[in-house]
Structure formats: structure tokens, C-alpha cells
């Protein structure tokens, strides 16, 4: 901790990390351009997305003011609340598009799984950081229980995408806590071993179809394979420089489904080409890098683990989304973070980045 950190600048007093904010704003700005094109130049759509972005930024700013210690203290109660809400969905939730994800609160529809995306890494970081690191094996049992309950509840809804994200955020905490490689290896091995069980007992038919479709999309080009084929055509036909903004025929002529939500990356690939994709990947890498820097500089284990987990979950979003849109992962409902049209994921993500900023700007400066 060097001396110049003593002099707090305006951003630190506002609990804002400027490098991270710049990265986030760049991504959101890029997203606006793409949504304008993908949404068919619909200004009402743009209005709604702008409102969401503004709201997300406000929430991020608000969360950044909260001391991480507060989060740590409230971690377990939040987790329990999340579990109760998930159970509520299981018994009383609304069925929508074949999945039971929503809880009708009367004034709004709410997805408890979304809350879990943040509550869960906080809980995990709280649990692990209670013990000296690296954690001993005997603490692991507790961690696995904390991990499995929400993951299975969400997977049962079914919402495979979110359950992967939630599980991943917990696993990242364990990994970053310095768990021995042998346990990490064993864990990865057991997950791989569980895949057949997942296939036979937990996956719905439509999920199995998605996996099979990934392996051979041309088998049913107008049915199950349609999304992925049209998406690959969009990306591939973009070439090096792309067809130009508003010029993507796959998206403008509506061959590409869900083009302003989950499949928005295909629009980027089509209209901005490999160069545009590279720019986006670079921006993401920058934000991830900054997140990991913040994590590394954090002063408590809890803060480090939480910051690292949030950052890596952000990466999982990116990897799963781009992987599915470009045809190397099965189709799961994961949006492209900060770019896709839609509110829930953006709110969750920006809350997460608010936590990162809080962690970075609430450091105590210890004189040694």
C-alpha cells in the first residue's frame, strides 16, 4: 500500500473505480449501437434500454457505497432468504415458456435465481473466509452443501444457464481460496463423471435436443437447428470487416432469431466482422483484468474471494453466450453481459460491479 493512496481523489470519495467504470460504459455504449441495429431501429426499445442502463448505474453507485463488511455480516441471512424464495418458486411460481422461474410479487415479477447469482458468491466467500486459507478438507463438506442446494433448485426450474452461473461462482470462490490442486482436479473429475446422470435425470428433452443440435445443427435446419445455423451464417458472413452497421442482412431481414437479446453477438459478428468481435473480446478482457486487479488488491479474504468470483462469473456469461452463439456450446439462456437487451441480467451484473467498486474504495490504509 503505497503512500499516494492516502490522498483520496474525488472518484475514491464517490467509491467509483474509474478504469472499471470506463470499461463498463464502453461496453454499454457499444451495446446501445448494436441494439439500435438489432432491434430494427426501434426508438422505444432504445428508451427502455437506456432507462435500464441508467437504473443499473444508479444501483451500482448505491451498492458501491456499502462497506463490504456489511455484506459479509448479512451474507448468511441473504442466502437463506434466497433459498426460501427458490422454494417458493418451486411450489407457487409462475410457469412461463415451460419453465418455472418467476415469482409474482403482485407489483412485479421477480426471479429469485437472479438474486442468488449475487447472494451465492457472497455466502461462499463469507463461509470460506471464516477459516484460514487454504481451507482444510473438513470445511469442504459445508461448502458443497451451500453450493448444491441453490444449484439444484435452479436447475430444476429448469434454468440450466443460471444454475451453471451460480455453481461456477461458488466453484471460483473455492478455487481462488487456494484449495489444493488435487481437490480441484477431483472436483472437476466428479463433475465430468456426473454428466451422464445430469443427462438422464436432470435434463429436459428440450435441453437434450439442444446438445444434440450443437453436434449436428443441419439435421433439423428449420427446427431445432435453425437458431444455431442462422447465427453461424450471420457471424460467418460478416467476414473480416463485417457488413456494416444496420447492414446485416441476417439480422435486418429477421433470419436471426432473438437478435437483440441472447443472440446479439451474431449481429456484432455480422455487422462488425472479426474486427468488431475482437474489439468486444478485448473490452471484456480489460474489464475482467481490472476485476482481478481489484480482487488482488483487496485487503480481506472475503473481499478478495468475492471480487474474484464476481469477475469470473462475468467471464462465464461471456464465454457461455459467445460459445453458444458461435456454435461451440449448446444453447442455454445466457445473455451477452451489458450488451443484450433486457433488464434483469444488467441489474445483477451492475450490482456485482458495484460490489467490486465498494471493495476497491473501502480499503483501510494501514500504516505499517
Amino acid at each position, binding site marked *: 500500500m503505497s503512500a499516494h493512496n492516502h490522498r483520496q481523489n474525488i472518484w475514491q470519495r464517490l467509491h467509483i473505480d474509474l478504469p472499471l467504470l470506463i470499461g463498463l460504459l464502453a461496453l454499454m455504449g457499444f451495446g446501445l449501437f448494436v441494439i439500435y441495429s438489432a432491434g430494427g431501429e426501434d426508438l422505444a426499445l432504445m428508451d427502455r434500454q437506456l432507462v435500464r442502463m441508467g437504473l443499473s448505474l444508479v444501483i451500482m453507485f448505491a451498492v458501491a457505497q456499502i462497506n463490504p463488511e456489511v455484506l459479509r455480516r448479512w451474507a448468511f441471512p441473504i442466502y437463506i432468504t434466497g433459498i426460501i424464495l427458490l422454494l417458493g418458486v418451486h411450489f407457487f411460481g409462475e410457469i412461463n415458456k415451460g419453465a418455472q422461474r418467476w415469482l409474482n410479487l403482485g407489483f412485479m415479477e421477480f426471479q429469485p435465481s437472479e438474486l442468488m447469482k449475487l447472494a451465492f458468491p457472497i455466502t461462499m466467500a463469507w463461509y470460506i473466509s471464516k477459516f484460514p486459507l487454504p481451507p482444510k478438507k473438513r470445511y469442504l463438506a459445508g461448502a458443497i452443501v451451500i453450493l448444491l442446494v441453490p444449484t439444484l433448485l435452479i436447475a430444476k426450474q429448469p434454468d440450466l444457464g443460471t444454475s451453471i452461473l451460480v455453481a461456477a461462482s461458488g466453484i471460483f470462490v473455492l478455487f481462488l481460496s487456494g484449495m489444493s490442486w488435487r481437490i480441484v482436479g477431483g472436483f472437476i473429475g466428479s463433475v465430468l463423471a456426473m454428466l451422464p446422470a445430469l443427462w438422464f435425470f436432470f435434463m429436459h428433452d428440450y435441453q437434450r435436443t439442444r446438445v444434440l443440435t450443437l453436434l449436428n445443427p443441419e439435421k433439423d435446419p428449420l427446427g431445432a437447428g435453425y437458431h444455431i445455423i442462422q447465427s453461424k451464417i450471420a457471424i460467418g458472413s460478416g467476414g473480416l470487416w463485417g457488413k456494416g452497421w444496420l447492414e446485416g442482412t441476417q439480422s435486418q*431481414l429477421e433470419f436471426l432469431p432473438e437478435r437483440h437479446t441472447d443472440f446479439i453477438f451474431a449481429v456484432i459478428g455480422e455487422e462488425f466482422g472479426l474486427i468488431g468481435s475482437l474489439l468486444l473480446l478485448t473490452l471484456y478482457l480489460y474489464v475482467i483484468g481490472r476485476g482481478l486487479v481489484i480482487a488482488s488488491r483487496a485487503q480481506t479474504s472475503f473481499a478478495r474471494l468475492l471480487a474474484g468470483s464476481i469477475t469470473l462469473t462475468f467471464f462465464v456469461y461471456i464465454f457461455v453466450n459467445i460459445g453458444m452463439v458461435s456454435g461451440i456450446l449448446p444453447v442455454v439462456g445466457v445473455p451477452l453481459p451489458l450488451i443484450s437487451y433486457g433488464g434483469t441480467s444488467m441489474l445483477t451484473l451492475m450490482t456485482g460491479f458495484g460490489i467490486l467498486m465498494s471493495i476497491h474504495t473501502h480499503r483501510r490504509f494501514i500504516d505499517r
Partner: protein
Amino acid sequence: MSPRKRITMNDHAAEASLFKRRALFTFLCVFILLSLLFVNLYQLQILSYNDYETRSNDNRIRVVPVAPSRGLIYDRNGQLLAENQPFFSLEMVPEKVDNISETLDQLGQIISLTDDEKESVIEALKYHRRFKPLTIKNKLTEEQVAEFSVNQHRFPGISIEAGLKRHYPYNGLMTHALGYVGRINGRDRTSLEKNNQWSNYAATKDIGKLGIEKFYESMLLGKPGHLEEEVNNRGRTIRTLKSEPPVPGQDIYLTLDLNLQKKAMELLNGRRGSVVAIDPRDGGILALLSSPTYDPNPFVHGISSKAYNKLLNSTSRPLINRATQGQYAPASTVKPHLALLGLESKAITPKTRIWDPGFWQIPGVERKYRDWKRWGHGWVDVNSAIVGSCDTYFYDLAYKTGVDAIAKFMEPFGFGERTGVDIYEESAGIMPSKDWKRLRYNQPWYIGDTISVGIGQGYWTTTPLQLANAATIMANKGRRFVPHLLKSIQDQTAKIDSPTDELAPIVLNTPENWDIISEAMRDTAHKSRFKDAKYTAAMKTGTAQVFSLAEDAKYDADTIDERLRDNALVIAYAPYENPTIVLAVVLENAGWGGKNAGPVARALLDEYLLRDSWDKKE
């Protein structure tokens, strides 16, 4: 600092550095995984770019072929014989219509749909792809088109398709020469595909089926154009990207003379028979009539099987092109040619005279071959033998020359082989010889066969076109053309005359023999039918024992007598000095040639040579 505290501090430092190592490792993993995404994108966007670009274009670009308009057909004077008429049909895309039977009921109030029509639409729907247009009603009148257009907004998914359909304004008058177009069928398609022509029919639904329409199909068709349209995922056209207009088919002018053809039709008046007229100066066919004829227009729209069967089963066989496929014994109309052979082969001389007692006998044989004039012609030479059509003279002549010499001599006159006229429906007729009979019937040739051939009967058959062609060569004194119907082709700027196909002429050892024969034909004409003509003509009539046109035809008891009557034939040309028209007329079962076919020839030559408006040079 207490030891406890130091340990904690050390632990904190160790924890921090452990985290940093893990974080760095994770960052590397992230970098590698993002690179993996990038490599995959590189594969899609750079390495497979061409493939995906093609597929993207296939998605969005629809190439719509545009039909060329078919070339028009005119007669030699520019009278329109085959035209293209606007044609409207009501089409529906079933996918876009919510309640089809209700929509049909509403449509019925506007353009009057019968219950049958509605039912057939409902029926057709069962075997129809929902997004392909289906025809509800053909041949809308202009009133119906207007009525519908006003109400179009009430009928989403239903539209009027406009096109052009062939129309033959003179109905049956030209059918056997023009032929007609009809819907392309499976057989047409197979043969087009075999000849790599199929792509030219991308937007065209009809093809020439017969006659000129078939023979000059490629010329009349033109080349299709293309519209490249951008469509969205529902197939709706967003905009036109490119358009390449079609190249219309070439207009053609035929050698046919509409007025002459009309006159021939009027003269035959539905009787079974045929008229062929040729301009001897270039072989152009002036008239080509096969009677009775039929209206080709129903064939364009798809003739009903009932109507078609009626034509097919009619005992007067209207579908057969008598002019080019009807095979008739030429009878006495070939006596001039036989006489010419006699003179050339020196079997006779202009001075040769024989006594005709009314019959002829093969030397040493009892059997009598009768002359048509039972009491005989008395002394006849070559001129009076032709003028009087003396059978005995020609029995003797044939006997002297033999059948093989006749066959050999008649070959350059076009007997026994196709003339090569520019329609496909043509028969070769039969010019018999000893070899022919052995091949055909595996029988030896008898002398009696030769005697029959001597008066143009027996095995000898010709088509009216062959007869006219042989007469043309006679009128031309040996000059020969391939008879043809195409006169000229309209290019973008000028009418280009179709080249005439002139064959090597027949050269006689004694050219004066041409004159002896044509003088005899002139005398024939002017001692009978053309006695009072204002021009000089040449003629020879013939009366043939019946050659049944269709051997398998079932004759009604009532018509048997008529069908057994002789065929009446005549060949004629005029003006004698410098012929401009040659005729062959055949009337089936009409009886005596001079009495029945002769007046037709006279009337046609009068029409052609004496009508005021006629431009004789053209």
C-alpha cells in the same frame, strides 16, 4: 508485536500471495478461453467466410425469373396470325388466408365463383403447399379484374396475376401450319433438360407443340430475364436488387398468304381434303390447308378431355395434317412427270402415237387393263395423252420403262421422301420400286404393279405437299427448292429474309422436253377448266381409287358409300409463261378430279392472280 499477531500477519501475507497466484492463473485461463472463442470466430469469419456469405445470400436473395414475351407470327403481308393476349388469373397464397371457405364465398359475390369452382379450390388445397400460390380462377374478364382490384384490401393473400397467353385470331384457319402452344408437360421437360434448354423455361409455362410453333420454338421463345429480390425470413420482398429484362422472342413472317388460305378454306367448306400452294420462285408455301380443321385456342388453355376426345374420335380426322401427312395415290396428276420420263428415256418421242381401244394388254397376256374411257381415245400422242389423261398410253409407257426407272426418275421430284418443310409433322409417302417391295412386303415385283404405277396408283402415294412440290419443279423446269413456311425474321431493326434452300436442279438431256410437257398441261387447262381464264394456266387433274387415310377407321354403314368414292386431285400453276403460284388440291371421296378439284384450283388461281390489292412482286 506478539507472536500470535505475527503469525496472523504472515498468514495474511501468505493468503494474499496465494490469491494473487491463483488470480494470475485464472487470468491466463480466461485469456486462453477468450482466445479459443477468437479462433472459432476466425474459423467462421475468415476461413469459412465464402461458404457463409453464400448461405447468407441464399437466405436473402430470391431470383425470380421473368418470362420473355413470345415472338409473334405474321403472314407474308404482315397479317397477325398468332398473338399474345393479356391473361388474368386470381391466385391465393393459402398460408396468408385465415378462413378460406369464407373468403371464397366473399370472392364469389365479387367475381362470381360457381360452387364447382369453390369446391375444386378446396380440393386442390389438400395437395398444395401452403405458401405457394394457387390459382382460384383463370381467364378473368377485365370487368372482374377491375371489380376485384377495388376490393383487394378485403382479401389479404389473394392477388391477380397477369400474364400473356397465345391467341390465334383466325382460330382453325391456320392450325395445321401454325400448330399451337400448350402447357409444358413431363415429356417436354425431359427433352428440354436433355438438351440443356430447361433453364430458358424458368418463367415460361407454354411450349410449341405442333407446326411452326414447335419448329421455331427456340426463335419464338426468347430469353428469360431475372429479378433479384431481397426477401425477409417470411419471404416478403423487401426490395429489388437487380433486374435483367427478358429478351423477347423474335417475330417471324411466314410465306403463307392469309387471303389465299381463307379462300381455300372457303372453297373446301369443311370437306375432307387439302390445298397446298407454293410460290415456285422460292419454294415459299402460300397456302397449306388441311380440312376439316380445328380451333387451336382451347389447346393453349388446356383443352378438356371431352372436347379432345371428340376431335380424336371424329371420323373426319381433323387432328391429322392432311397436307403433309395425308397419303394419297397421285393418280393422273403425275402423268406429266411420267411422260417427261418417257421422252427423256426415249421410250417415246413427241411423235409417238399409239392406238387406244379402251384397254391395254401386257404383250402375250390375256388380261385387259381398262382405260377410264371405255370406248378408247383412238390415236394418241404424248400431248393428247396428257390432255385426255389417256391411261392406255401410260400403261404402255410404264411397261416400256419399268418401275425402277420410274422410281429413279421421280426421286429428284421429291416423291417417296420428306420434302424437308419446316414443320415436323410430315410423312414421306411411297415411291415404289422392286427393292422397296421386297423390303416392305418380302414379295417379288409383278409387271401388273408397274402398270398401276404407270397411272399413279398401286403402291405409289404422295402427300399433297409432295404433289405441289413435284408440280413446282415441273413449273420451274427443273429448278428445285425445299418448300418452306418461314419467310423472314424480325430483327431489332430490320426484317431479315430467311435464306431459301435451293437444291441442285434437274437437268434434262433434252431441255425442250420440259416445254412439250408444260404445253400439254397448258392445253389441258385451257381445253377445260381454264377455257375462259384471263391468264394462261397449266393443269393436270387426277381421280384416284380410294386410299383409306386411316386404315383402322370404323366406318358407319351410312357413310360407307361416300368413303368408297374416288379422291379428286388437281395440280395447276400460273401464269404459264412465268409461274408465280403452283397448286395441289386433294378432295377425299369427292369423285371425278376434273369436275370436283378443278373448280377449287380455278377459283384459287383467280383469287391469287386477279385480285386487285395483290402486289404481284411480293
